[in-house]
């Protein structure tokens, strides 16, 4: 399998504390990289740095694709949906922004179990339902690399199972996933890497 991403000697210092130093890894197609660490270890910082949202103090992140932004789905702690818009509108607009103009939002909503709720403003949906709206992105996107920060937050066990099933499909099709989760995976990926950030030792 070919390499998607090479990360070399990343250093992050935040407010005077060293979160991680000399962190390197490579990511192949089909890989799942599970980043672990206690609260405040620096997992989110690392993910955000990988997608270019945060500047680190050192190191390089190298994508083996010219137009790397199109190769990427990032989902952070915040869902990134608009509370004022309905689920349907949110999905449609999100897909268009991501560059997929011809998705079928109804199909997507059905997949994540939101059928029948498509006309409510997202702000009135339950926490898990709001996350599900954002997660629809994983069903239409063709990007090989998913960078997901705590994707299981607020999901019920059915939701988690559904998502892991999608993960399995994605990696089987050659996609790669970098994720954090305080809940352990119930699914065993073929190519699982674990990376533990020990934010404690200063």
């Amino acid at each position: 399998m070919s390499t998607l991403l090479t990360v070399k000697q990343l250093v992050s210092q935040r407010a005077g504390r060293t979160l991680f130093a000399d962190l390197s890894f490579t990511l192949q197609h089909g890989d799942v990289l599970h980043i672990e660490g206690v609260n405040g270890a620096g997992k989110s910082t690392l993910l955000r740095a990988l997608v270019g949202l945060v500047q680190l103090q050192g190191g390089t992140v190298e994508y083996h694709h010219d137009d790397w932004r199109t190769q990427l789905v990032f989902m952070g702690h915040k869902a990134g949906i608009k509370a004022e818009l309905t689920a349907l509108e949110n999905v449609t607009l999100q897909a268009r922004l991501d560059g997929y103009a011809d998705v079928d939002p109804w199909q997507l909503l059905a997949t994540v179990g939101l059928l029948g709720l498509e006309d409510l403003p997202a702000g009135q949906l339950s926490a898990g339902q709001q996350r599900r709206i954002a997660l629809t992105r994983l069903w239409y996107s063709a990007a090989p690399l998913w960078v997901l920060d705590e994707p299981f937050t607020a999901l019920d066990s059915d939701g988690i199972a559904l998502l892991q099933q999608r993960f399995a499909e994605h990696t089987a099709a050659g996609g790669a996933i970098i994720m954090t989760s305080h809940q352990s995976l119930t699914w065993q990926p073929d190519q699982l890497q674990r990376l533990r950030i020990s934010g404690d030792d200063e």
Partner: protein
Amino acid sequence: MTQASSWTAFSTVMRRDLMVVMRRRSDVLNPLLFILMVVSLFPLAVGPGPDILGRIATGVIWVAALLSALLGSERLFRDDFLDGTLEQLTLSPHPLSLLAAAKIVVHWLLSGLPLVILAPICALLLKLPSEAWLTLLATLVAGTPILSAITAIGAALTVSLGRGGALLSLLLLPLFIPLLIFASGAVEAALVGTAAWPQVLLLTGLSLLTLLLAPFAVAAAIRVSVN
């Protein structure tokens, strides 16, 4: 991503923002009411003499324009920042400056356009002599986009701070002043009968220049704020 889909992204950002605002109807009408209140306040304050009113009319209308631009500014990025939409925009495969331009357009539609539409009513209320109406309209059309562009820069710079409008206005008002002076100068010229077109042309030029450069500044500012 092709050129065409970048255009889709532009229009999607615009549509989304407009839809959000339309859901909260007061957001649309508040600026309009504000402008009307400002404009109707002055006849009350100075008494109904047409001579004075006419002389201050341009100034008042333009100040109203500045202030209504400010009023709409907080909303421009704050909610996007808080709900995570802003970071998604930053990660979009389309150039961020293009999406920033969409934001500028939305801001103009919500604060500049109402003023352009209301300009005749304002001119009437303030008894601006009719020979200056066209010039006033021209300066508004040429000038309000600058307002929106600069406001967007300021809003993007302050979005992560949560300090409220005072700081933002502090940054923006000095930058607005040349605009104010050029625009009121043009109308003044029309009033005394000299040619107003040089100023209007100048404003148009400035406007184009600002619209060309501002998206990049906004994009840079967003990246700083998201960090």
